[in-house]
């Protein structure tokens, strides 16, 4: 049992009727649409009693649990409330879930990113459930005149064994709401979990399969106008002149105007990233009318001069970072020249162990390879969109956003409103993948609504979304390995760089497992905007490093799993350096598990196998890909996945997420065209030319195995995505006798 100081602020006793859709938060009544299906549970209660910001209990025992974080498909809307429910000790079928409002007083880190929702929410969620349970027990003890220690709970019931007294949570909820919040609470032992660790279906499942309007794009308001924006057709361009005479007279069009999403001189936060300083807004009655008018707008564009954007530092906002936006219309051909130049000269040394130069000089064998991936667009299935209703003294925004707290600040700054006058409501998101961390589209919606003096829904077309930027950068890595005459790895060198950012993680494996190690990096400025993309940088480095290690193992005449396990053994027993950013035992653990579960030593005839393992975002994943060639085409028969993310909160959703990350990784590495550029213009703007993984390319089966342990849980949104890219490259090598260095492998 763990004792923890309670941190959650207790709001004043709140009692509300259910007339407004079961909403405690009166201003969020529309969220009734986001409440999980109440049909399968007790009927709605007459009254709700709020025990803390995370939960309220009805007089009939029905419990509403608030899911604080944005839902992008990682299923936190089910798994976060499961954690609260377990500590509260209630029957999951009597729980309904509501998407929480943005409220940084109550909730911590309401952000979907970095696979951190469960990891960083874990204690707060448990505490919320445990605190409420304690208050219910105290209320019962008081009512029954017995010591609180003697009051136990069981699935929504309070019991006093000696006297035989019992009550439901619902019966005690009113009294419990008046109990002072305890200073300390007991948390369960992991072995006593009843809901955590059990498979629970998506709380929004029925709503999704029946087509309820859950997403930002589905949100509507009486009198709402539709808006679209036009951005420059190429990076490096800005607006020169606008001719909207024809467009403005088209049916249904209300207004066309230019505007700046951020005012000049505005110090941006890191999620304000946007490549375009001025946009054209087209506003009208319906989507189709606005789409047509948008095509009729004649704008002239011109190259911009170099300028600097100022950003505030993520963790220390008082620190300012200047970011150069160079002039010029960039092309992928030119990028290739830059990469060739920079990767062939020394970069900035980030880590150096031993004497790598000497090791390479003395090596019996040196292996060298280079890897590349282009820029990538996130392509969330739901394109960017946001609703805004800005009136004289307040702004109300509704839509898909991974960083509501940052968007709130940016909107407040842009409109000149105090923070408390900006209200952001989070909808379910049709995918995020990092793209919806960057909330410029919410700010744009707010500016347009203010100008129109009307509620407005801003919609990006697929083309707008795919060509707007905030891409994953173009990355390159050069790897060298030195083997001695006994095929021991005596030297390792990585030089990684990118446009405009380096992907290097200098302290990740195999750092710590090799005596002589050198990690260098370089970068080259660009005016193409970039941002976080599912497992940023890891998504490239895992593919490169794990492909390279396969090549090194082969050159050393070793089995690729044994080769890696030897290195982990070294890192475990006698690590080189101090800042090694991984736990060698857990890393080896997933490799061993995937080795055993895939029956690694026995390859089926006609099957080609590749393996990879990677650690990022606090979780460990190893994958084995089984691939067959059919009519000259690779068919992935099975992917075996071994995952160590500590305690698995919801095994059903976790397996789904691992499967999805695996499919996405295979698609990203093998098929995804990425975004290339000609004269600053993205070469793809829709799925007619932009390739994406489809049903026919997906693995025929995916097996997911979790390492069983009681370590606090870590996330899964990102970790399964990077390693499979290496595993599939290695399987392809065995199938085709060709190494795959450039993504997309089948491009």
């Amino acid at each position, binding site marked *: 049992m763990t004792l923890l100081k309670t941190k959650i602020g207790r709001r004043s006793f709140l009692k509300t009727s259910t007339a407004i859709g079961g909403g405690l938060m009166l201003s969020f009544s529309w969220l009734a649409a986001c409440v999980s299906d109440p049909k399968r549970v007790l009927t709605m209660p007459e009254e709700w009693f709020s025990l803390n910001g995370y939960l309220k209990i009805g007089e009939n025992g029905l419990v509403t649990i608030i899911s604080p974080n944005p*839902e*992008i*498909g990682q*299923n936190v809307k089910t798994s976060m409330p499961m954690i609260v429910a377990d500590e509260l000790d209630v029957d999951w079928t009597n729980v309904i879930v509501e998407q929480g409002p943005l409220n940084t007083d109550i909730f911590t880190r309401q952000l979907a990113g970095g696979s951190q929702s469960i990891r960083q929410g874990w204690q707060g969620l448990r505490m919320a459930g445990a605190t409420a349970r304690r208050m219910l027990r105290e209320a019962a003890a008081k009512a029954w005149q017995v010591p609180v220690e003697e009051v136990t709970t069981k699935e929504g019931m309070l019991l006093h064994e000696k006297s035989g007294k019992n009550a439901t949570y619902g019966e005690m909820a009113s009294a419990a709401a008046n109990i002072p919040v305890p200073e300390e609470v007991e948390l369960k032992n992991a072995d006593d979990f009843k809901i955590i660790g059990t498979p629970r*279906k*998506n709380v*929004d*499942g*029925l709503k*999704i*399969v*029946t*087509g309820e*309007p*859950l*997403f930002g*794009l*589905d949100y*509507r308001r009486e009198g709402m106008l*539709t808006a679209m924006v036009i951005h420059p057709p190429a990076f490096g361009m800005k607006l020169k002149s606008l001719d909207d005479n024809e467009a403005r007279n088209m*049916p249904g069009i209300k207004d066309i105007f230019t505007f700046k999403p951020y005012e000049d001189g505005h110090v941006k936060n890191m999620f304000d990233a946007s490549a375009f300083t001025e946009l054209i807004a087209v506003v009208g009655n*319906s*989507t*189709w009318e606005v789409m*047509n008018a948008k095509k009729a707008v004649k704008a002239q564009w011109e190259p911009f001069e170099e300028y600097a954007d100022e950003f505030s530092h993520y963790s220390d906002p008082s620190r300012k970072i200047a970011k150069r936006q160079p002039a010029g219309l960039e092309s992928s051909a030119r990028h290739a020249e830059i990469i060739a130049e920079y990767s062939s000269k020394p970069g900035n040394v980030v880590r150096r162990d031993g004497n790598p130069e000497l090791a390479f000089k003395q090596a019996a064998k040196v292996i060298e390879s280079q890897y590349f991936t282009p820029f990538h667009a996130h*392509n*969330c*299935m*739901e*394109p960017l969109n946001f609703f805004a209703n800005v009136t004289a003294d307040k702004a109300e925004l509704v839509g898909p956003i991974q960083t509501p707290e940052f968007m709130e600040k940016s909107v407040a700054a842009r409109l000149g409103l105090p923070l408390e006058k900006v209200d952001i409501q989070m909808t*379910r*998101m*049709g*995918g995020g*993948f990092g793209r919806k961390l960057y909330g410029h589209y919410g700010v744009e919606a707010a500016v347009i609504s203010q100008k129109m003096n009307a509620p407005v829904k801003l919609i990006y*077309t*697929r083309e707008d979304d795919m060509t707007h930027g905030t891409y994953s950068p173009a990355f390159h890595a050069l790897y060298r390995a030195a083997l001695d005459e006994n095929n021991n790895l005596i030297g390792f060198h990585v030089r990684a760089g990118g446009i405009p950012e380096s992907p290097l993680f200098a302290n990740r494996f195999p750092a710590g497992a090799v005596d002589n190690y050198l990690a260098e990096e370089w970068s080259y400025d660009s005016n193409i905007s970039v941002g976080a993309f599912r497992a940023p940088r890891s998504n490239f480095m895992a593919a490169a490093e794990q492909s390279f290690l396969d090549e090194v193992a082969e050159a050393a005449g070793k089995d690729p799993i044994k080769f890696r396990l030897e290195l982990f053994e070294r890192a475990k027993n006698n690590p080189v350096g101090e800042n090694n950013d991984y736990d060698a035992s857990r890393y080896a653990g997933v490799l061993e598990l995937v080795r055993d579960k895939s029956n690694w030593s026995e390859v089926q005839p006609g099957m080609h196998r590749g393996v990879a393992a990677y650690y990022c975002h606090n979780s460990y994943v190893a994958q084995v890909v089984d691939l067959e060639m059919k009519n000259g085409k690779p068919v992935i028969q099975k992917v075996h996945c071994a995952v160590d993310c500590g305690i698995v909160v919801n095994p*059903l*959703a976790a397996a*789904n*997420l691992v*499967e*999805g*990350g695996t*499919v*996405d990784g295979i*698609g990203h590495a093998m098929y995804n065209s990425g975004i290339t550029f000609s004269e600053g213009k993205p070469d793809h703007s*829709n*799925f*007619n030319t932009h390739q*994406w*993984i*489809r*049903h*026919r390319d*997906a*693995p*025929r*089966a*995916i097996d997911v195995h979790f390492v069983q342990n009681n370590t606090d849980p870590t996330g899964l949104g990102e970790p399964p995505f990077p390693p499979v890219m290496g595993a599939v490259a290695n399987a392809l090598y065995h199938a085709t006798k060709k190494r795959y260095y450039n993504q997309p492998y089948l491009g």
Partner: protein
Amino acid sequence: MANFNLNINGKQHQVDVDPATPLLWVLRDHLDLQGTKYGCGVAMCGACTVHLNGTAIRSCQLPVSAIGNGSITTIEGLSATGDHPVQRAWLEQDVPQCGYCQAGQIMSAAALLEANPQPSDEQIEEAMSGNICRCGTYVRIKQAIKTASTLKNSAS
């Protein structure tokens, strides 16, 4: 602008719109049926899939003027309470991640099973490859289509 009488989910609806307006936007903007999703607008993602006389079509490419007396079914009209075998199978397999593509996937799958009650793996891949799932739920979708096939065949 012109008036159109549309038969959608067994009901008659009247709209006054530009005849070139794709069915997708008529559903979403004019009839408040937002289950049908926009993903690409160029018939390449399948998010907007609905049934026209029982066949799966991409509503982003179907001008309202081309519908005539055709009967349209959208995700909202596939069943009254979400108990169509495909919907039940989707819930049983817990298919959705973000969920955005799933209405389109379900409509494609339902049309497939109507035409071919026991599709092979290859037939499923063929019929479903026009529907992108950005979250990568393909393996589960295939399982769910097989589950739905069983549910459907045991019911009839």
